[in-house]
Structures are given as C-alpha cells and as structure tokens.
C-alpha cells in the first residue's frame, strides 16, 4: 500500500497493538483527538480507553510511567508531543529507562518506546524544532532510531516495540506527510542498528538521516556525482561497519545533519572513520549541519536548515580537497 511516514507509524501501532495486548499507548492528546499529527488516529476507537490514554501534561510522568509499566511487564509506547518537550523528562531516561536492565542485572527490563516528532521545517514555535539525537545517542542503554521513509517508519517502529530494551524513535516531522511510498501491508521489522545504503557510489560517501536525507539526495542528483548515500537510520547502537566500509571504498565523506554542529552526532561518525578508515581518507570529512545556535524562530528556520546548495558546496569541497 502507499503510505506517508505518519500513516506508516499509525499502521505499525495498529498492527502491534493487535498482535500483542501488552502494547499500550499514551501521551498528550493522543487518544481523543488522535494526536496533534494524527499519528495515533483511530487507535482509541479500536483498542479502547485502557490501552490508549490521554495523559496529563506531564513529560516526567509519561516517560517514567512508561518505564514503570515496562518494568512490570507491559510494552508501553509513549508519545512526547514534540521532541523539544523531552528535556523535562531527560532525567527519567538517564536515571531509569536506560538502565533498568543493567541495574537489576537482567531481572527486570524496560522495553518501552518513546516516539517523538523532531526537527525543524514545519514553521512551528520555539522549542518545536530541535534535534538532540546527539545527546540521546550518548546515553548508554538507550537505543535511538530515526526513520526517513514510510517503509522504515513502520519497520523500525515495529522493531522498537518488539525490542527488549528502551528505544527512542525520533520521527522527522517535516516529512511526515510530504510523500507516499510503498509500505508492505503485513508487519515486518527493519533491524535496529543497521544503516541503509540509499544509493551506491564510488566517488564519496554521504551520510545523513531523518528529514535531511532528501536535500542530501537532491544535492547528489543535482551534481550528478557518483556518491554512495547512507541513511543512518539508527543513531545508537551505531552501524559503524556500513559507514566505515563505504568510506574505505570511496575515500571521501560528507555528513549532513540538522542538529547543531559542535558535539552533534556527525562528530562521532568522523571519530569512527578516524578509528578505522583514516588511512583511506583522501580529504577531510565535511559536515553540513545546523549552526551552533538554537533553531531560529519560524521566520528564520530555513536559514538554519541545510539545503541542497549548501550540501552541493560541501560535496564539491570533499571532492576537490
């Protein structure tokens, strides 16, 4: 069937709730109104109040509550309405969700999923546009995935729900509905921890994730270069193998992400390439990223976001250095 990303998410939630009655979903405005992005539309009608619940405006209680439910044996899938509102619950991730299994030596576990729309480009208010995957990717015990296609959105969310450990699913809301693509009707998992090669190539490796995949692919096309384009898909645990093998082949790399540059996840990719493929590098790795500033308010956000021309210039620099 042809689905948008948000449709694919809705589909995955339907299937997994159907398949496993321990799965329940909750968050702000997800039940009665189907979610501010309609990602949870129809679920309350289908699965009832017990399994689809509107919570108070309480991010700490949502994330911590999910951890408690998961410890007890449920499979909670909680929504944080925008990723900019996950920071109030940061402590629940650091202190509990990510380390329940570790702390209790496997006696308990916390198979929870936090879904949250992230990233800029939808002309929303302050704090609605951030990308802190670098922060969450630094927390041991927490898995972090970022789908960029409807197929991956369904498959990765399905995998996240079935995963025995906590998974943060960061959903690129800019492209929630920007296109439809073929999505299998039956359920399936896309493996967490595996990057996807979107386009094979030999001249350079271009690595990106989330909404930035599309300006990236467009820049590659505009330039007509023979780039290998990698969609990271998972931030943690990182598939450094795919990245490193590609760079060994091409000898050149460019990373595109919308988060701030300094301390962003791009630096970890560079560090991995340094570790295992330094001697293959023919040029410094380029990063095309957000600037080291807060995401500007909506009138300026398109200055902030990487766009095809910026990416093209980056590619040219990598190719000519």
């Amino acid at each position, binding site marked *: 069937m042809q689905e948008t990303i948000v449709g694919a998410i809705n589909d995955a939630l339907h299937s997994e709730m159907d398949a496993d009655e321990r799965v329940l979903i909750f968050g702000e405005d997800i039940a009665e109104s189907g979610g501010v992005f309609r990602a949870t539309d129809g679920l309350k009608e289908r699965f009832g109040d017990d399994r689809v619940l509107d919570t*108070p405006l309480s*991010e700490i209680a949502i994330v911590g509550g999910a951890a408690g439910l998961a410890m007890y044996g449920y499979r909670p899938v909680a929504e944080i309405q925008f990723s900019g509102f996950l920071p109030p619950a940061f402590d629940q991730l650091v202190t509990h969700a990510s380390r329940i299994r570790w702390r209790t030596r496997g006696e308990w576990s916390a198979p929870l999923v936090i879904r949250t729309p992230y990233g800029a480009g939808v002309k929303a*208010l302050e704090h609605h546009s951030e990308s802190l995957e670098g922060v969450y990717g630094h927390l041991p015990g927490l898995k972090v995935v970022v789908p960029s296609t409807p197929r991956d959105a369904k498959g990765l969310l399905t995998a996240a729900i079935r995963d025995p450990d906590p998974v943060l699913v960061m959903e690129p809301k800019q492209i929630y509905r920007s296109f439809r693509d073929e999505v299998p009707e039956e359920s399936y998992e896309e493996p967490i921890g595996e990057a996807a090669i979107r386009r094979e190539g030999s001249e350079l490796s271009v690595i990106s994730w989330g909404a930035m995949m599309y300006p990236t692919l467009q820049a590659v096309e505009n330039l007509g270069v023979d780039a290998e384009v990698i969609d990271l898909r998972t931030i943690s645990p990182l598939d450094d193998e795919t990245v490193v093998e590609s760079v060994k082949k091409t000898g050149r790399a460019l990373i595109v992400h919308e988060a701030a540059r300094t301390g962003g996840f791009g630096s970890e990719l560079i560090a991995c390439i340094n570790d295992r493929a330094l001697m293959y590098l023919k040029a410094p790795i380029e990063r095309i990223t957000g600037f080291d500033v807060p995401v500007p308010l909506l009138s300026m956000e398109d*200055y902030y*976001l990487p766009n095809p021309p910026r990416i093209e210039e980056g590619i040219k620099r990598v190719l000519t250095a």
Partner: protein
Amino acid sequence: MDEDGMYETSIGPQSGRVSQNDLDVGLLQIVEPDGSYASEEVPALHDDQLCDLYRWMLLERTFDERMVKLQRRGELGTFGSGYGQEASIIGSGYALKDEDWLLGMGREAGAMFLQGLPMRDMILFWRGIEDANREMAKRNLMIAISIGSHLPLVTGAAWGMQLDGADSVVAAYFGDGASSTGAVHEGMNFAGVLGAPAVFFCQNNQYAISTPFEKQTQARSLAQRAVGYGIDGIRVDGNDVLAVYKAMAEAREAAQAGSPMLVESLTYRLGAHTTSDDPTRYRDRTEEAQWKRRDPLDRYESFLRSEGLWSEINHEAILEDVNNEFDAALQAADEYEPRHVDEMFDYLYAELPPSLQQQLVEFKAFLEDRPDAYDYIDQRAKG
C-alpha cells in the same frame, strides 16, 4: 498532644485523614452569571476604569478575531486565541502595575498589551520574528512556549525583587495543563519558602489542547493546590472581570507583602487551542454552547447597564478604534525589515566565540556564491 509542640497542627482529627472533601474552596464571584451582584462587592474603580475594562475586553476579542483571520490567510504561523477568556486575561492584567513582570505562555495577549506591548509585536511574535521577544523583554514580559517551564524563572525573578526591596511582583500566567508539570510544582513550592513576591495566575480554561481538566488531575480545583505549598489560593470566576480584577489585586498585594499566591481563574476556551487545532474532535457543541451563555463580555455589559454606564460605551467606536489599531499594527508588522542571516548568531553570547564567527562568515560567503540557496530560504508563509 505533645509537650514541645513538635507535632504541630495536630489538634485536627485523630484519624490524621485528609481529603479534598474537607476543603470547600468556593468561588469568588462579583457579578453572577445572571447579571446580579451586590454593590458593596464591586471593587473601588472609577467609572472610567469600569468602562476601560470593557474596552480592553473588546480589544482582546477583536484582536483574537483579526489574528485568526490573518492566520487563515496564511499570514501567521499559528495562533492561540484568548476567545472566551477575555475577563480572565483583562481582569488580571488590569490589576498589575507598570513595574511588574509578567511571564506567560501566550494566551494572555491583552494582559501584555496592558503592560504596554504594541500590537505589532504580538503579530511579529506569532510570525516567529525574534525581535518580538525583545520588545516584550523591554516591558518585562516573556512568553515561554515550553508549558510550565517558566515558573522557576518567575520565582527567581521575584526573589530578585525581594532582595532589591522592589515595589513590584512577578505574575506567572499559565494554564491548567501546566499545573501538572514538575517545573510548576518546584517553582511554586520554592516561592512559598522564599516568600517571594510572585503571583501564580492559572487560567483554568478546562482544556489542555484536547485534554479536559478531569483528566489533568483528580483535584476539583487548582486553587486547593496552594494548601500543599503553605501559600494562599483564590478560586475566582474567570468570566467575571470584576472578580478576576479583585482576586488579582488581592493576590498582588499579598505577594508584595511576602506571601506569594496562587489564583485559579475558572474560565473556558471558547475557540480552538490554536489555529492548528480542531476542537470538534474532542468536545461537544453543547458544552461550548453552555459556556457561550457565560460570555464574559455579555455579563459585564449587563453590569454596566445596571450601573448606568453602558451609555458611556460606544461599542462601534471602540471596535473601529481597535480595528484601526490592528490595521496599523499589521502594516507595521508587514513593513518589518526582512530577516537577515546575522540574526541567527546575534545575541547568543555577549561576544561571539571564534568558531561561531567563522560559521557566520562562511555562511555569508556561501550565500554570496550560491544565491539559489534563497529558493530554499525564502519565507514560505509571511513570517
């Protein structure tokens, strides 16, 4: 019960049990929904002030209507209207003084106008133009988009006023949804301990987006939460502008004297949460109709009529004035100079660190080289 008084407040029930049924918070009303009132309860305001309150409520309503229309024409990002909450917004804002601070959440435009914010800047705010926030700060105003997150700032700023011996208070504007956040809890409790001059003004408009108050908390009122912080609370009919004014004035005075207070203004959001929201998905028309009958402007009109002041109100003239003001504000907003790339970097630090300077320089050079980048940058909507 014990000689040294360590088990204090222990003269209560032997069971030590407490429940919300032990506490009937009541409701401060001056003008009842049917329009009746006791004259001696009416706050001591001059006739022109009484008329002024109406003018401001009408301004709030008109501003909200115009903004919603503007958004529908694609000239704003989104907008959160105060429709239905005019008495709550104006009654409270009218009780504040010039030197007071107001840190809010966006649904209190009129209270900010009362503090001197030009309409233009509220339009700029909803267009996502950074300078709007400067104009707010100039008048000691701020909007916090992360719900509830500003309460600790409120307490901190009020603590500063206390240390300074200033003649002012900080008013926190927040909603029923916000009351569930940890930040609101910590901010209020700490203010209580400090005795800081803060007024926590909660507009309980019955909804946090789609979530009704009954799902927000089991508590029957938010005013009763004050008890848990050892501060005082007032529950006021938020559709009764005189009652809200009185509650806020009382709270302001107490706060200035070192007793922060929590005011719960019981009202109803008659419009959508924001222009992106569709309330028919989660509430029914009969409820809306019920509250429509409690329209704060209608109620106050009946009061003004009883007082013989309605004749002082030239409804059409006010509307015309406000619309003119809005037209001028909109024009000023439209004329607002175009965005410039430096703005992204400006003011992040007192002094821009070298690496950021370099990011800026490189980006500017890029824009020179690749003017086609503007195809992606050019503003899609106005603002």
